[in-house]
């Protein structure tokens, strides 16, 4: 199996001003290494502060790591400059958690999806409409603005946008955490359909173990900036080795199983 993405010992620190104005140093990533095969879904589960969102953004170079390497399809993209990176960006995309903030409020749905498509205006519109259709947006709303859509619909538009560059790899950063249960179900189904249809590879990040269990081939558990355990979903669920992971699964069983 070809390794689509490989990270080696990623480290990243931030200096952050919190809500009250105090500056702290945050060690978001403390040495993260893993690989993803083509066609696989790697689920990353972690609590807040584990570094999972930073990992998602770093892996596609929206953040430059302080140390370590990111290798995408055998190309080292760790420290590439933006103009070299730009043509490669088409191959890896990201879907964000908050559907209310990830769309430009002043562009229509069609404009948002069309933007990154290459080609003549006609081709852009055609492909844009095709993508919106696939994700389930009705034709009469193609030219509506984000505020006219629900959270679930906005997330669909974001998904269509991420498909517009024909990517091979998509980072899904808690894409259903802000959505209602029934909408989450629809979006999860959509993710599975699109994966098959377009032969995608996912890095699926969530704090919800039930969702991660459902979508992932392999699971990586993050704690304080490191992956403390990684392995096939069934194996990890049955036999977690790391004590933190064990505790996490225990809680989930006690609190949430039905």
């Amino acid at each position, binding site marked *: 199996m070809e390794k689509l993405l490989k990270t080696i010992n990623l480290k990243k620190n931030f200096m952050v001003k919190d809500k009250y104005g105090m500056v702290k140093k945050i060690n978001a990533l403390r040495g993260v290494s893993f690989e993803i095969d083509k066609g696989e879904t790697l689920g990353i589960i972690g609590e807040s502060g584990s570094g999972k969102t930073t990992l998602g*953004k770093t892996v*596609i170079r*929206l953040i430059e790591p302080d140390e370590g390497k990111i290798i995408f399809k055998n190309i080292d993209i760790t420290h590439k400059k*933006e103009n070299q990176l*730009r*043509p490669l*960006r*088409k191959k*890896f*995309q*990201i879907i*964000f958690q*908050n559907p209310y*903030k*990830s*769309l*430009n*409020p*002043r*562009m229509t749905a069609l404009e948002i999806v069309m*933007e*990154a498509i290459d080609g003549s205006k006609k081709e852009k519109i055609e492909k844009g409409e095709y993508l919106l259709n696939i994700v389930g947006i009705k034709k009469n709303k193609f030219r509506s*603005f984000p*505020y006219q859509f629900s959270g679930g619909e906005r997330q669909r538009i*974001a998904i269509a*946008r991420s498909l*517009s*560059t024909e990517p091979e790899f998509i980072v899904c950063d808690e894409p259903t955490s802000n959505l209602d249960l029934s909408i989450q179900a629809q979006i999860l189904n959509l993710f599975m359909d699109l994966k098959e249809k377009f032969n995608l590879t996912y890095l699926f990040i969530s704090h919800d173990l039930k969702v991660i269990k459902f979508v992932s081939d392999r699971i990586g558990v993050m704690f304080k900036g490191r992956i403390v355990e990684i392995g096939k979903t069934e194996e990890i669920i049955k036999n977690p080795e790391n004590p933190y992971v064990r505790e996490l699964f225990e809680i989930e069983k006690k609190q949430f199983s039905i």
Partner: protein
Amino acid sequence: MINFLNRLRKKNIFSFIALIIIFFLYIFSFLADFISPYPFDKQFREYSLCPPTKIHFIDKSGKFHIRPFVYGIRIINSSVGKYREDKDKIYPIKFFVRGNKRKILGLFPSNFYLFGTEGDGKIFLFGTDIQGRDVFSRVLYGSRISLSIGLIGVSISFILGLFFGSISGYFGGKVDNILMRLVEIIMMFPSFYLLLALRAAFPTDLSTVQIYFLIVVILSLIGWASLARIIRGMVLSIKEEEFILAAKSLGISTFRIITKHIIPNTFSYTITAITLSIPGYILGESALSLIGLGIQEPYPSWGNMLSVSVGNLRILTSAPWMLLPGFFIFLTIICFNFLGDGLRDITDPSLNTGY
């Protein structure tokens, strides 16, 4: 466009009325050559400081005229401004009259005017000034200067402010530092004195056109600074938004991110900031003209028309119509303020959430 007008009318009726008034002010100013009955420099020395001509429909014998008319003006004592209506002479007001040749907008020769009187009849709707020039006509011609300086000056400031503000905010670092220090230096000077100083740096006897452009340029150079600073602040916060990150990850070029994603999201502020700052430019020009550094005689601007009355008690008490340019300045500024309020109300995206 119709949608916009309707929304404005529903949201803030004063703002809508203000927009209409402003619209008409600009139309009249554009058509000044056609609307004003006299050229702005035509002097009727024997009618100096004549009060506004009254319009009548019923003559002294009680007869009703469908066509409004004015009486002749009997000069009692021109040097002390005493006039009386000569009720024996009746001059009907005619529309689309022929008069002296004039060039509409400086291009088309014409001797057609919107209204006027024939023969010896004079119609001074706003009275005359010391040299016997029709104030109404001068107000109309003067509006061209005052209204256009506002628009042009603001446009230039707007473009400069957006440009420097967004570059400063987006790239940060040294560029940001240098630009913001420059902005602070400009903002440090009290703007009126800066205006005077810049104007005084140039010779006082330039041609009118040159003076006009000089004023516009000076006003814009002072005005862009505060706009740039505010834009920079907005850009700083907008660039952290997720949809900007999304655009980056799609491989969109920096230029397009700034122009298509960031700047349009500053419009909710900038559009209203602009309408609210236009009055400042109008006042700036008026102030310069008031003290003689602006548009020179015989060309009228609302500012220099007022300058004659300043400190002149005789005029203020016996010829109050000379202050009408001041009223128009006031009207324009109030309207722009109301318009700005209304625009702010309707461009706020948080109000676009449904009902």
